[in-house]
């Protein structure tokens, strides 16, 4: 005990300078082995959802990149795969297009609240056009029955039934407002949703992780989550599809109204507009000075839903 600066204990075995714990190898190895086994078991348990996911999705789907990073060749392969999956899983020949925005076009919607009577034909048309799950009756449109004298959505009721319109009510159809300042896009942690040049806010269903932040962020309750795989009878599936629009969505992702971009980017009117028996719905290109939309904005009393939030909707409500 004369050398105070030597930390190692003086071993009885003369030249043995190793740490004492090493001198007890059987216990050390047993502890290490036990933790390694536990760790391995925990890892296997942790990745088991991934392995199950891998069984449900192909390697190609797992490796697919973000829509904006896909080359034309990538897109061709992705769409071919999705079409084959639709054939395999739903037994129907579908055509999935990659409709891109029309240059110099910004889509805007307007609804005449003096005319809308809440009959719900738009809700049904959306349900069919966009291949929504039949059992949940999903639709991108929700019609609120509102007491007259307020535009407070919280006072609305979607469960009304029977004969419409009721005398003391008006009807407010709400769907995605395709905001110019979309809060849903801001909150997406993986940039799976974005605003395109023609104003439509789209979702890459294959990039969405299903966190539902966007659903919570939307002040119009316009986003929907696929709690289950959409089930649509083969003969009812709309085969006219688009990658960013009405193709059959996978389970666990968020979806939303796309102004029927698989129709509107081909020059057609949206399905909800064509279905409206009252003619309350107007759709068009706000950049065209001769468009219906421009005339309405210039000549009618126009209201913006929750204007105070600064979301700048591309959706207007007007009155006669």
């Amino acid at each position, binding site marked *: 005990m004369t050398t105070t600066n030597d930390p190692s204990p003086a071993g009885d075995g003369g030249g043995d300078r190793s740490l004492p714990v090493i001198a007890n190898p059987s216990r050390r190895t047993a502890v290490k082995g036990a933790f390694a086994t536990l760790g391995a078991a925990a890892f296997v348990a942790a990745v088991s959802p991934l392995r199950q996911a891998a069984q449900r999705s192909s390697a190609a789907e797992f490796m697919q990149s973000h829509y904006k990073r896909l080359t034309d060749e990538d897109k061709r392969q992705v769409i071919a795969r999705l079409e084959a999956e639709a054939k395999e899983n739903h037994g129907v020949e579908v*055509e999935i*297009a990659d409709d891109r925005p*029309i*240059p*110099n*076009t910004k889509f805007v919607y*307007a609804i*005449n609240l003096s*005319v809308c*009577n*809440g*009959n*719900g*034909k738009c*809700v*049904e048309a959306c*349900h069919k056009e966009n291949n929504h799950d039949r059992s*949940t*009756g*999903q*639709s991108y449109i*929700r019609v609120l029955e509102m007491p007259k004298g307020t535009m407070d959505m919280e006072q609305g009721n*979607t*469960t*009304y*039934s*029977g*004969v*419409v*319109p009721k005398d003391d009510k008006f009807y407010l159809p709400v769907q995605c407002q395709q905001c110019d300042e979309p809060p849903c896009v801001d909150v997406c942690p993986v940039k799976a949703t974005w605003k395109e040049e023609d104003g439509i806010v789209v979702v890459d269903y294959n990039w969405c992780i299903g966190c539902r932040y966007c659903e919570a962020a939307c002040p119009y*309750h316009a986003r*929907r989550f696929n709690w289950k795989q959409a089930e649509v009878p083969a003969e009812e599936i709309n*085969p*006219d599809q688009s990658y960013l629009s009405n193709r059959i969505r996978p389970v666990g992702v968020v979806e939303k109204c796309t102004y029927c971009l698989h129709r*509107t980017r*081909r*020059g*057609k*009117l949206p399905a909800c*507009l*064509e*279905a*409206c*028996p*009252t*003619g309350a719905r*107007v*759709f*068009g*290109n706000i*950049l*065209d000075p*001769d468009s*219906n939309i421009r*005339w*309405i904005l210039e*000549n*009618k009393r126009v209201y913006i839903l929750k204007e105070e939030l600064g979301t700048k909707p591309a959706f207007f409500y*007007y009155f*006669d």
Partner: protein
Amino acid sequence: MVVVCWDGTPPRDNQRRERDVLAQSISTVPSPIVAQAISETERKSSAPSEPGRHAVVVRRPDGPPLIELAATDPQGRSGQVACSTCHSVRPPNLANRSSDSLDEFHQGLTFNHGTLACYACHNPEQSDALRLADGSVVEYRDVMTLCSQCHAAQATAFRHGAHGGMNGHWDLSRGPQTKNNCIDCHDPHEPSYPKMIVGFKPRDRFLKDETKHDDHK
């Protein structure tokens, strides 16, 4: 006006168009009118049709109405007669405003269109046509001209797509558009839009019966 070049129509559009036509015929509001391809641009001198642009087609009645006879002939055949079959030999009662005073025909007719007299719109001299306020003849096919005399605001809104339903294309450089006629939606004798019954309802989280399955209970 932005005209966008586009290389052709994809082959599936044909199928689509057939379905659109089907959808149109289903969504048509009760009315014995057959759509006729007469372009609105023909009618409007102010908007001559531009080359490369498709027409806006306004649906029209295909002619004067025909009355279905209730009785059948000995062979069991029913028939249709024109208004003029009876009205050409009967003196018009210009003061009549309601079907209540009629004792032979049109008794069940509901009339609720202001205080108009029958002959405000129907033509006493030419019973298979209508007449404008100035007395000039207007055909049944051009009934919108008649309506527009009083409902100018609606007619203006209609011209700008802000009144009345439509089908087809918003982009006329890619395809035509079909618009409803006034009397597709409004019965001229009872023009207020009929009440409807709500059909389809989505079962989403805002519906009450969903709370039964709330996991937090």
